[in-house]
């Protein structure tokens, strides 16, 4: 009786990264592009039913719902060899096909209008699961559908399925380049509010960092979307590896996420992966010991979130989860942890446990890699607030000038006022403040900034 996960792919970006994710999962589980188990896939040590279910003819169908307001990406998927993989009933394309026009408001409004149709699909999928554990949402926060429809979906899912974990893989825009989407800061901020309030765990995939990694680490001059999405799919597949390859520990998502998130809002996780390889380029094979992998994961250049350099050195880890894949002796893990602690390679919050969790996972027997050990880090780091702060800055620049708000005012939510935007700003500012407070030892009394607060008690654990 497995704990199943339903994946919701929203918008162009969400569907693109979702598509890469399913391709990767199919390869790792020995499932053909048509969902049929390959002849060579006989080892049977994996748990396919977390992400797939079997049709009557026993071919595997992803527990995926594909939603978009414009057809381009979904059409590409449906014209690919993987067209037969998905359940066609789980693909929803807006009938008018015009998309959300990169407008969060439009996407959100579409969501309200399409609620019944979309939740028919989601409810059916959820009811078809024996023991649904989580929803995973793949989307971008900068566009229209992924952000707007995504925000709407997050609100409704957390209401409708309060006991289910809601995890997102949220693609943050590349702030290093000027974007075609001028309202990107609005979209991002409005989505961030929902991610803060309605998601249990957000895996931040920062396009800025992904491009930097593709350029610097993989030596790709101009990384394509496919190449960037491939990186994302690697992260997604590695972060779900312990669920798909059962072991004595870390077999459910909640078990992985809970120790990473000590307080409700500090649930934005950054990722790191090593060793990264490029399919198109021969890379030198390095020796990968557990310590090497764990040390490299702590290096900022491997992080897939581009944060502002911390001049004061105050930012720190709240918690870390390293998912190590490969044939590893458990004792090596503990030696490596010991070394990391001794050398103080990771700076932790002063008010809570210095939690470095390590989850061991098997590698797919059907996908050959040149490295013995690979690792993914999911880290809760306070420096992620700098990303939100930059979004706030960009939002403020536009908001001050009340630029590009016309399209928003056309939507029901913003017809009367733009309070929602200001409210979202407050939420995100609060979030940034909380992350900043979390770097200090008096985090426990954060929010108690008035006289008389000493009545709080002994605060033994702080």
């Amino acid at each position: 009786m497995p704990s199943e996960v339903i994946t919701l792919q929203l918008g162009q970006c969400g569907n693109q990264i979702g598509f890469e994710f399913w391709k990767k999962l199919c390869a790792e589980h020995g499932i053909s592009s048509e969902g049929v188990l390959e002849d060579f896939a006989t080892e049977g040590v994996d748990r396919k039913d977390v992400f797939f279910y079997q049709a009557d003819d026993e071919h595997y169908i992803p527990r995926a719902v594909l939603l978009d307001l414009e057809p381009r990406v979904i059409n590409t998927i449906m014209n690919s060899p993987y067209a037969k993989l998905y359940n066609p009933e789980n693909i929803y394309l807006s009938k008018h096909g015009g998309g959300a026009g990169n407008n969060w408001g439009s996407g959100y409004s579409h969501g309200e209008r399409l609620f019944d149709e979309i939740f028919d699909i989601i409810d059916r999928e959820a009811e078809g699961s024996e023991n649904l554990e989580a929803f995973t949402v793949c989307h971008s926060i900068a566009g229209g559908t992924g952000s707007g429809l995504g925000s709407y979906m997050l609100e409704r899912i957390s209401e409708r399925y309060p006991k289910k974990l809601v995890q997102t893989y949220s693609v943050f825009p590349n702030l290093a380049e000027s974007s075609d989407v001028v309202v990107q800061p609005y979209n991002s901020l409005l989505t961030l509010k929902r991610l803060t309030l309605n998601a249990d765990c957000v895996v931040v995939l920062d396009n800025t960092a992904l491009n930097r990694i593709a350029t610097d680490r993989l030596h790709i001059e101009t990384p394509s979307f496919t190449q960037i999405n491939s990186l994302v799919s690697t992260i997604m597949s590695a972060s779900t590896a312990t669920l798909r390859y059962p072991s004595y520990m870390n077999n459910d998502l909640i078990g992985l996420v809970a120790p990473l998130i000590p307080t409700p809002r500090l649930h934005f996780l950054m990722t790191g992966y090593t060793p990264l390889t490029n399919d198109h380029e021969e890379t030198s094979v390095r020796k990968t010991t557990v310590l090497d992998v764990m040390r490299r994961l702590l290096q900022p250049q491997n992080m897939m979130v581009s944060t502002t350099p911390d001049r004061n050195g105050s930012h720190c880890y709240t918690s870390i989860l390293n998912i190590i894949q490969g044939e590893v002796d458990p004792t090596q893990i503990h030696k490596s942890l010991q070394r990391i602690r001794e050398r103080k390679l990771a700076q932790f919050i002063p008010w809570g446990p210095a939690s470095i969790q390590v989850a061991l996972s098997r590698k797919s027997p059907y996908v050959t890699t040149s490295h013995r050990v690979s690792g993914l880090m999911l880290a809760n780091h306070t420096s992620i607030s700098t990303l939100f702060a930059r979004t706030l800055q960009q939002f403020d620049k536009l908001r001050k000038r009340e630029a590009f708000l016309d399209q928003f005012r056309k939507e029901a939510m913003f017809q009367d006022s733009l309070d929602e935007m200001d409210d979202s700003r407050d939420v995100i500012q609060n979030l940034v403040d909380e992350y900043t407070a979390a770097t200090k030892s008096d985090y426990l009394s954060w929010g108690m900034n008035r006289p008389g607060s000493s009545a709080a008690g002994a605060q033994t654990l702080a």
Partner: protein
Amino acid sequence: MHATENHEIVHQKPYVTASNIPTLAKKKQCSIKNLSLNGLFKNTCGRYSTPNIWTEYYALHEILWTLHQSCWNEKASVKSTESGNHTKVLRVAGLPSFSVNCFHPLVKSLEEINYYLNNTAPQEHTLTYQAYTVALRGVVTQFNQSVTDYEKGVARQRATSTISQLLLRLRSWTFNIKAIAAMHTTIMQMSSSVADNNTRSTHLLSVVYDSAQKAQITNYSTLYPVLLEILFASLEPFFNMVDLWLDQGVIVDPYQEFGILRNEAVSPQDERFWSEVFVSRTTQPLISFLKPLMDDILLGGRSVELLTQLKRKSMRVNGGCPSGTLIETFRHRFSRFASNHFECEKVFHSPIVTVTTEKDHKQEVRNPLLAKTFETLRNHSSRSQPSKVEGVCVPLEFYPLLPLLERSLMEPLRNRQRMVCRALLDTLYEDCCLKLHILNIRRIHLMQAGDLMGRFCLQLFQKLETGEKWDNESSLTLSLLNCISSRMGQCGSYLSVTIKRGNVQQTPANLVDVQINYKVPWPVNLVITNDSIFLYNSVLRFLMQIKQGMFSLQHLSFKDLNCMDVANVNYPRQQELLSATCRHRLQLLRAWLLYFISSVDNYIMECVLESSHIRLDMQLENAVHLGQVIDSHQEYVTSIHKQCLQQPSGAFLRDAINEVLSISREVVIAWKNGLELEKLNKLEENYLRHHQFVAAVLGTDSAHSMLPHVETLAAALIHSCPATR
């Protein structure tokens, strides 16, 4: 030379041929049977003696004939003469050495041996004694052959044959037969006083072995090979019994002389089967070279017994029995080792090498003392030439007998033992699925199937949390089978869940009462015993408590976090702030508890269980017999039981961990129902105290020595201790 007196023997050309000997005896009116040295002298020296001229040739023939007869007739020996003195010296001119005493001991010894050979019925003997008898007879036959051969030479009259020559020729035989007779007397003394055949046989073998060992030092070239041959022949029944036992699982022991006995009190289904199926018949110590091999024999015997019980034949499993019987292989190897040894020596002393060596010595060994030592060694080795007796190639005298025997026997015996042990292990692994059963128990009781057991536990914990009735054994069993069905459906028939509440039936059942039974099939129960299932369950219950603490903390949703009870604070704003702070503190306490419990869980699952699994897997892979498998599994279970703090030595740590688990339960309740500030303070203090206590204890050397790999848990708790952070 002519005899001048009655007693004189004249050297003259003999005129009697070998064929004339009976005729000669008849002439003297003595029956062939009664012809003896004594008779000879009586006829020549007594009052009925005729004054014939006795030639030396005549006397020689008479002696030879007497000796020949002594080989078959125990009564043809020297008995007291009429005068009561049988030590009369033949006063023969020119033959001062010739006296009756020269042949008397030989004839007496032969008489003793013959007495045994001719007067003991075969049915009175054990197989070992029978074999010994045959060997003794062989020695006598050889002696007889030697006498006959000599006599033939004498009869041909091609060379001068004298009594002195005969004496010289029989000197070694005299010594050998005397020694054998002495050995035989020792054997017979014990034999008559002991009724137990095993003791008798063992004694016989020990005496022969000891005699051979002594002879190797005292009389290497003559007596030693003869005794070796007797030893080997006497060992043959024992070897055959072992051979048959290890091949077909049958102990053919009609005379109860085999040292090992099937313990009929132990049935094959009994868990003690492996250790107690065979018992020693007596406490009689074995002969030394067999002692180190008895364990191998016993191992092989137990294995073949179990294979027989499993209706499997060891050799069939392995695709053929070893070529040759054990005794043949043993003899062959003994000869080969001896030959190899000689060959080495021969190479060393071959002319070319010798020349080279000598040259080298001359050129290089300038130290005169060293040169002399080399010279002595060369001379010594050249004297010790190999002599072959009945296929036994005797090694050099300085090569100890014990290691040579051990080497000769060890490999063929161990080959048989290994083969049968391997066959048993293969059967247990492949047909009886031993490894699969161990794996099943690991997956269930040690929660290696984390996802499946996680589901079972979660259902159980949820029922416990909601107060739902959970302790119905059938429901629990069904729930377990349902949870594991996706990957372990095949082991459903072995599993059941029971609730053991002890004596107090009234109290509500708890997690510590849960027991997962695994019906271990025979013969796997020889390895996974009921006791080990009990230990597995003990670990399981501890794991379930830890998982319960961890699962309940993990599944706390921030959305469910209730407002704190701050009714005693007057101002609404203060209430709000205080409530927020309390919530924050409770979240933090949850984080600490989760960290603590996860660290303990990590330590147990990875450092204790996973490391132990890897070690056990290696041990099972390398095991060569079932005994090792049983021991490895027993050691594994005991070790994890200890490392999971289930033994009294770890009770104080276990109690501290249980206290933390109890705090976590209170936090879970408070999370949903709220709690007073004072209570929160108390919980925090309690947690702090226990965290510090466990960290401090685990940081000590004694904890490190008691619990391997515990330093990783200690480091995690010491590095992240609430007081220091």
